[in-house]
């Protein structure tokens, strides 16, 4: 089964900085979700933007429904743009402050001629209703809405062109707890109702399970581990995932893990260490890690169900088996 989005050995360079250094991922057709998790400098935002052709890539292949994306032009490019959309992090700046909400949505509808001009207003109202806002919002300006409401308008605008893939770039980071919960609920309903595929970019591990089945953990431009979210969080196979997991605060004391403190600070992205990029901070670092860059390999096979991209665990670590064995979830009684 062809994945909806197939990224192979993607590399992106900004000047001297290697933002992405050989990233490979797959996203299945909807409803499905893949989360890109990482901290600043991990490159997750770059993957999201590259996937929908918002920036130029240095090398690698991005295929959408089997077709290479970078070569698209004209009409084919326009159709791709409608099929693959994005919702940004910053609700304050994602809408033109000079346009009323209705006009912003109509603009998207008309750019792709989704409906004839005379029906655009009506369709805009329907889309707003779908994201939980009533028709009165059509005549409002963005600054008259709360952050959560603006985010919903941004979602409605992205949905107006009937995408199959939706990149969600930190969709709730700028929102309060309650607004976040509502937006996550909305995104979950939309995923099911419209059979969407989500590429969720986030630093907050806690919101991943609600929208995604699989997650890929990124560090300094590489995928260090990927797999089904539940198993990955229970038994991480990469030391960085372990440390990340242990650092996430939990309300319930029972859910907390022993803190794994990482030594040193994340290195400069322009001067990556030799071998494994994580080795200077890694509690499992061995001599081999300083010279040989680990490649992403299958450490737990899992099953390949039709229509999905499999449930296996991939990890880029020389000592993954020991990490799996040593992890808090392993060997526990």
């Amino acid at each position: 089964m062809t994945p909806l989005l197939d990224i192979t050995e993607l590399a992106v360079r900004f000047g001297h900085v290697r933002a992405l250094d050989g990233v490979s991922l797959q996203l299945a057709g909807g409803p499905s979700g893949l989360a890109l998790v990482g901290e600043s400098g991990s490159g997750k935002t770059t993957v999201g933007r590259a996937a929908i052709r918002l920036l130029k890539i240095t090398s690698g292949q991005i295929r959408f429904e089997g077709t290479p994306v970078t070569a698209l032009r004209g009409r084919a490019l326009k159709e791709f743009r409608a099929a693959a959309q994005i919702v940004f992090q910053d609700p304050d700046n994602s809408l033109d402050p000079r346009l009323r909400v209705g006009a912003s949505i109509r603009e998207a509808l008309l750019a792709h001629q989704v409906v004839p001009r005379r029906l655009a207003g009506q369709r805009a109202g329907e889309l707003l209703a779908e994201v939980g806002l009533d028709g009165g919002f059509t005549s409002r300006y963005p600054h008259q809405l709360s952050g959560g409401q603006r985010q919903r308008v941004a979602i409605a605008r992205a949905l107006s062109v009937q995408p199959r893939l939706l990149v969600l770039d930190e969709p709730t980071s700028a929102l309060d707890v309650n607004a976040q919960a509502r937006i996550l609920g909305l995104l979950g309903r939309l995923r099911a109702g419209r059979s969407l595929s989500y590429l969720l970019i986030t630093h907050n591990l806690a919101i991943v399970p609600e929208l995604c089945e699989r997650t890929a953990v990124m560090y300094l431009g590489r995928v260090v581990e990927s797999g089904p979210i539940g198993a990955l969080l229970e038994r991480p196979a990469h030391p960085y995932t372990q440390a990340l997991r242990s650092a996430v605060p939990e309300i319930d004391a029972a859910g907390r893990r022993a803190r794994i403190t990482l030594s040193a600070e994340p290195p400069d992205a322009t001067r990556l260490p030799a071998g494994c990029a994580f080795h200077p901070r890694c509690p499992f670092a061995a001599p081999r890690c300083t010279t040989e860059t680990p490649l992403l390999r299958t450490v737990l096979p899992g099953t390949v169900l039709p229509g999905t991209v499999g449930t296996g665990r991939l990890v880029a670590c020389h000592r993954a088996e020991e990490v799996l064995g040593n992890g808090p979830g392993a060997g526990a009684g």
Partner: protein
Amino acid sequence: MRLQVSELTVRFGTRQVAHIGDFSLGEAEIVGLAGESGSGKSMTTLAILGLAHTVGATVTGSIRLDGTELTSMSQRELRDVRGRRIAAIFQSPAMAFSPVFKVGSVVLRALRLHGMTRAEAAEAAARALRQVLLPTGLLDRYPAQLSGGQLQRVAIAIAIALRAEILLADEPTSALDVTVQAEVLDVLRDLRDRQGMSVLFISHDLAVVAELCDRVAIMHDGRIVEQGPATQVLSAPRHSYTAGLLAAVPSIRDSAHR
């Protein structure tokens, strides 16, 4: 109680934005002030620092620091209190450090402003940096060369060097990566344990508050709706708003069921 707040009201003209009936901060404890944006927690912070007037707000009520009433102090007297007795760190550490000065000069200036000699300041700064696990060489760098987490720790170091009794931390880790946040939280816990400092931790992130704070006060619409020991309030809330807030916080543990 080191800090005692009673009947504190913050107003913009006739509009009341915060009212704290009774709130206190004791020695060697971390108290969380949690709430969403617009709950009044930031205005309360400004009021305690005696800076509410800078945004055009008026303050009535009582804020006592070790028995001394802060609301009746002149700005001159408050300047002595601010930084030295009540230190503050904010969400964006970069705001505290002017990009054209080396970090060291900002630290030393802060210390000397509160009466230390150059030698005393250098000594205190070095000691404080060690306590927050930063190399003293960092003082020679410019703010742009330091990460957010490092800058935040330097800001905390200033509070340590001044031997502040209270640290007001307004969303200090919201803009930081989760692993860096964990380190800063470690430093705050160390302040409480080793220095006996009182920390007022303001945040919208209930999970962080749960992990860090001994006691917590939940704010909504300018008022404290519930306060008490953190473990109690956050596991068995008595107010519906608190319960609603807790229900809205996503938890990793849910993933175990997938």
